């Protein structure tokens, strides 16, 4: 009876192996009857989530790291006080040379902050009361942000009502200027809020921000200027495409003629071009005339097209050096180099026109590798039915 009692109690309390020893002390000299299969002991490890580290453990690791850093500096005979992370990496690579290809498998000594995953700090105090008033919603930062946005909207609307009641509402107040920026994307919002944001939540967030930004007084100065600045925190500036183009500067040679240099690549060809001003429109490639270097009309057309497009055919002299690749890719490389060198002679608008024409875009196409089990890059071996 007592033995069966022990076994039923054991099965109730289940997984702990130590429970049997407790029952021994209580029942004093009941033999260990619990025999459970391994199926009972198997835990769902995946459900537990990533391994959690306590704050004390991380602190201990940090102390050990700092002490180890000083020891390492001593070993290398360097200054213990100003031993940076690069010095640590260098010393470890010297002391523990590793031939492993995978960089993450090599010996490593980094600050514990970079090694152990960041844990969310405990959200409640000693008495168990959570710190944030929206803790029980599950997404406290996101919902408190929504709360704040709505509070601002209400504040602005009330202010408008007050002004309208006094008759001071000015109709020329314009909303925020949002021309050159875009709303942050969902990933950026997740980064701000540090919580998972679903698509639906993101849509709601955008709707609320649009509503706030659309209010008439949102862009005005004074107290509302705060709202405008606050809203811009959630916008990203868009950069104009053409302004990112690097323009080769014009230089002057001994005779005072302006010239500019640029480089271009296509497939495996590399080209470097010097454009000189005040010439008669002659073109030289690798020391020889254009006609003799590029006998094919198509190549000459490719080389001359940027000059024809910009309308400077008779004005600029071309001096090109090209190597590598075949005739067509060399022509493409020279063309790109000429287009880039031409930017120094042109205005912004003409540069934008050239960009739209595709003259400034490097051609990314390179030869595709051959794959095993196939004739070439795409061609398969002949298929035989039997």
């Amino acid at each position: 009876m007592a033995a069966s009692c022990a076994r039923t109690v054991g099965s109730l309390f289940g997984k702990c192996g130590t429970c049997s020893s407790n029952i021994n002390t209580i029942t004093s000299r009941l033999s260990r009857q619990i025999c459970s299969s391994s199926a009972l002991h198997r835990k769902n490890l995946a459900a537990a989530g990533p391994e959690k580290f306590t704050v004390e453990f991380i602190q201990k690791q940090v102390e050990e790291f700092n002490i180890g850093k000083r020891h390492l500096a001593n070993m290398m005979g360097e200054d213990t006080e100003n031993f940076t992370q690069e010095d640590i990496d260098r010393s470890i690579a010297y002391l523990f040379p590793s031939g492993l290809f995978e960089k993450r498998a090599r010996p490593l000594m980094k600050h514990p902050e970079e090694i152990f995953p960041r844990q969310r700090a405990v959200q409640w105090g000693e008495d168990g009361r959570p710190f944030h008033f929206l803790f029980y919603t599950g997404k406290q930062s996101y919902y408190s942000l929504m709360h704040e946005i709505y509070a601002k909207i209400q504040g602005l609307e009330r202010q408008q009502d007050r002004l309208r009641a006094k008759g001071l509402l000015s109709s020329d107040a314009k909303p925020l200027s949002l021309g050159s920026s875009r709303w942050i994307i969902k990933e950026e919002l997740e980064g701000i809020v540090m919580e998972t944001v679903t698509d639906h939540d993101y849509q709601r967030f955008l709707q609320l921000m649009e509503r706030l930004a659309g209010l008439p007084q949102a862009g005005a100065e004074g107290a509302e200027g705060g709202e405008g600045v606050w809203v811009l925190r959630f916008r990203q500036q868009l950069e104009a495409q053409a302004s990112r183009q690097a323009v080769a500067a014009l230089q002057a040679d001994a005779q005072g003629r302006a010239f500019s240099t640029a480089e271009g690549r296509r497939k495996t060809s590399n080209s470097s071009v010097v454009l000189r001003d005040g010439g008669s429109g002659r073109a030289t490639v690798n020391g020889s005339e254009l006609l003799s270097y590029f006998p094919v009309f198509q190549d000459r057309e490719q080389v001359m097209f940027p000059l024809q497009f910009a309308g400077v055919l008779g004005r600029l002299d071309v001096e090109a050096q090209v190597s590598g690749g075949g005739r067509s890719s060399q022509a493409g490389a020279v063309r790109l180099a000429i287009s880039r060198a031409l930017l120094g002679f042109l205005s912004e608008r003409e540069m934008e026109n050239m960009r739209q024409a595709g003259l400034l875009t490097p051609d990314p196409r390179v030869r595709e590798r051959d794959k095993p089990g196939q004739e070439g890059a795409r061609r398969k071996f002949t298929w035989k039915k039997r």
Partner: protein
Amino acid sequence: MSQRSVACTGAQVLRHFGDLADQWQPDWARFPAQFYPIWQHRHWQRCDLLWVGTLASMAARVLTKGIWALCNPRFVPVGCSSHGHLSVAAAQIKSPQIQADINATDKILSQPLETEDFFRLSELFSLKDLFDARVHLGHKKGCRHRLMQPYLFGCRLDQDIIDLDQTVEHLRLALNFTAHVAYRGGIILFVSRRRQFSHLVESTARDCGEYAHTRYWQGGLLTNAPIQYGPGVRLPDLVVFLSTLNNVFQQHVGVRDAAKMNIPTVGMVDTNCNPSLLTYPVPGNDDTPLAMELYCRLFKITVNRAKDKRQQMELLHGLMTPPPPPTQSS
């Protein structure tokens, strides 16, 4: 052994069994059971059934005494002395300071229970205030919930009118209970799924230092809390529903979940709501902004008053050092 709900921790009872408690704790006792009363209730029911036999009957007697003893903390020494070798060393020498603190805390906690309306909350509102805030207006006759029939005064031109006499009484009880929970440092969660009043409810909760949930209710919030929030989380001790329906006019999931987790609930029930699962239902209008503002104001004042009273009592009984006087700024 009767299957009554136990208002003390399973771990405390286990401590009476001495080395059993020292060496091992079951899963459900690792989380203090006052936060999971349903767990300890279910397990103690099962334990009742299992503890049969020679050892079991002795343990059951001990268990009964232990639970009874813990529910009446004054009688703990009496209960302990009869357990013999199974009890933990009852002769724990407590320093007089700790004993005095325990006495003071007992007095602080028991004193409000002696008076009927200790926090004088009946002064906060009158029937006329409720009438002016249009609390008596219900929905149309077709929307009426059958169980709300007793709370109705009548029906005029197809619109239900709520009996404000009953409302006053229920609201008084509800506010009194809320005040007592706040006095004892309980966590109060304000819940409402009305988008119109979401901001108001959240601001109310923030202003009185409590918590709010006016957003999408994730299923396991109360019933699966240690997985969702982390182990050791404390659940709310009271849930106040400022509107018991959700956006599709069904009963809010929180009502059922709080009942499952043995968490008392206070709720403003309109004529289309089901009052049966709420501990303190308060029949009243939940659609008018004026009525909602009145409720929020009442709850805020109640909670603040109760917390201030607690601070006063602690100062009075010398448990708390008074805060330093504010520095004069010239």
